[in-house]
């Protein structure tokens, strides 16, 4: 399990840093959440989030284990195109900007992405969507819990299970205390830490390693990484783009932000977040290409980012990387815990089990679900069955199949239930097949292509005439009582 015997920081230093930042996040969670009693306050920050906080939370949430650890992994495995292709994840934020504006306009009192699918396509499509969305959420949570354990182990030698437990425990703690308001607030601070860290690391890395040395070493040791016609990396480019689009379009992490932003903020916030995010995976990925020049042994591909940064920058750099990636992971885990808990509360607890639940009961259920998600994630992280990128891209087969049902459902009256259901089911099946038959780098691409075909054919054969007013649903929580 633990294959690194040459960590740059000693475990005591690691524990001190973890303790300091854990105390900070918990204190902030308590401070921001102390007045969040109403359900809207607890799960959507009162629907009054402005541009600065909105941009920061979108950017920080998208800088996650994907960006800071899987991006270097992809660069090490796929080379130049892997590094550049990873930054295409920003396209998901750009494309969601107009969707966020539309969601806020069509569903001013909405709570979840599940609400939209249920009202737009009916109950069967909604349940298919919930399965996909919850599976993805769990996959993402597990990947980040794993990333926390791997990062802390790689930099400090603290065993994987201890690090993973700390990061999950802390995020559950402050999300529980402060709800969505704490998530947004800590995201703002975490975004500042991440951006500052990336700038410093990029500057120091350029000072420490020459481009000539990096190029010469790769050309000798790992020549295919420089090959612009490397087949797997060519296949990966649009797969990564569509995977990112699918993640953002369907996930309640991004819908809950669209609901929580003040009117007119969503479009600008997501566009700015995309611009701020795009360079980060390029910087993170670039440092992985220094592996041959440094003669560094990388025991597991998903460890490469923190290991190279620590090797180049020494002890101070390792501390910086630990703080930066700890922030990146926290900002995503808290968002996912909050958004998934409201998805479970609204779409499963209230819609399936307790239709008359009061606002107070739903708030209590939301807190319990956050704890339950934390425990479930820990249990799934413990065996560490795969690498980060492979786990993430496994979910790509599913999420990319939701792109067209959601986008067409938001803009086309003629999009219909049959196309949405066929798109999600057949797209997921085809993506999954290609994952095993060809590789993780085509699963999302195939899923999206099959899903798009289903939606288009269904629209052409049997166009619907949906009334947008049907999306404006009365929620019992609005009056604080039962319906």
């Amino acid at each position, binding site marked *: 399990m633990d294959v690194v015997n040459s960590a740059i920081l000693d475990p005591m230093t690691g524990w001190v840093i973890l303790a300091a930042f854990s105390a900070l996040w918990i204190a902030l969670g308590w401070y921001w959440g102390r007045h969040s009693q109403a359900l809207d306050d607890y799960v959507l920050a009162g629907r009054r989030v402005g541009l600065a906080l909105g941009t920061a939370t979108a950017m920080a949430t998208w800088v996650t284990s994907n960006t800071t650890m899987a991006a270097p992994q992809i660069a090490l495995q796929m080379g130049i195109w892997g590094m550049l292709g990873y930054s295409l994840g920003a396209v998901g934020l750009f*494309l969601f900007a*107009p969707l966020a504006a539309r969601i806020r306009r069509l569903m001013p009192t909405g709570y979840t992405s599940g609400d939209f699918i249920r009202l737009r396509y009916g109950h069967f499509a909604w349940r298919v969507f919930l399965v996909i969305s919850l599976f993805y959420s769990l996959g993402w949570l597990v990947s980040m819990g794993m990333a926390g354990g791997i990062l802390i182990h790689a930099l400090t030698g603290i065993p994987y299970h201890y690090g993973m437990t700390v990061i999950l425990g802390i995020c559950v703690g402050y999300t529980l205390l402060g709800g969505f308001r704490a998530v947004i607030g800590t995201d703002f601070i975490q975004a500042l830490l991440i951006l500052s860290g990336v700038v410093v690391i990029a500057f120091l890395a350029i000072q420490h390693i020459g481009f000539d040395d990096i190029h010469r070493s790769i050309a000798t040791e*790992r020549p295919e990484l420089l090959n612009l016609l490397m087949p*797997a990396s060519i296949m990966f480019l649009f*797969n990564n783009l569509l995977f990112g689009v699918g993640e953002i379009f369907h996930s309640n992490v991004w819908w809950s932000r669209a609901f929580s932003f003040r009117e007119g903020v969503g479009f600008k916030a997501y566009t700015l977040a995309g611009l701020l995010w795009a360079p980060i995976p390029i910087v993170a990925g670039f440092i992985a290409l220094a592996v041959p020049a440094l003669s560094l042994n990388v025991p597991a591909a998903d460890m490469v980012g923190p290991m190279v940064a620590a090797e180049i920058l020494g002890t101070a750099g390792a501390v910086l990387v630990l703080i930066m990636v700890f922030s990146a992971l926290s900002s995503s885990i808290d968002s996912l815990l909050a958004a998934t808990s409201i998805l479970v509360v609204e779409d499963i607890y209230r819609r399936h089990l307790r239709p008359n639940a009061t606002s107070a009961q739903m708030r209590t259920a939301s807190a319990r679900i956050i704890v339950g998600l934390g425990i479930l994630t820990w249990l799934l992280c413990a065996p560490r069955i795969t690498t980060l990128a492979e786990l993430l891209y496994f979910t790509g087969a599913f999420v990319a199949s939701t792109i067209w049902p959601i986008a067409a459902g938001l803009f086309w009256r003629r999009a219909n239930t049959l196309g949405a259901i066929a798109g999600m089911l057949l797209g997921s099946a085809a993506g999954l097949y290609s994952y095993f038959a060809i590789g993780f780098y085509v699963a999302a691409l195939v899923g999206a292509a099959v899903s798009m075909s289903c939606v288009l054919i269904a629209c052409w054969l049997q166009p619907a005439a949906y009334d947008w007013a049907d999306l404006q649903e009365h929620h019992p929580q609005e009056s604080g009582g039962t319906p």
Partner: protein
Amino acid sequence: MLALALTTPLGAAAQSLQLEADTDVATAGYYQLRWSSTSPVVLEEAQTAEFASPRVIYRGSDGARVMSGKPDGELYYRVRNSDGDARSNVVKVTVRHHSLERAFAFFALGATVFIATLLLIVSGARAGTSR
């Protein structure tokens, strides 16, 4: 998961060193080698199963190594203790990249889906704004 294609019998000492790869055919040029050892090891790579002219690619106490950026071909690996008294089994990994035809077919498919999605959103957003 394992690619223990070849095994070299080297007595009881060799049995304590086990080497494995996470795939026997690498279609993207990367794979991971793992070994079990409590002491520092030397990882060797060769173009033939006989290890006529092996190349040392790692010395140290870690328990695994990620290989990447490899061109098409067959490669053989083994690990030995630093003092050389024990050797592992030999692992063979074949690197065989996907064809360029297949790669560009997926590229074209991805580009088509992306452009169609972009058109849907841009035209939908414009129509929504004008209404």
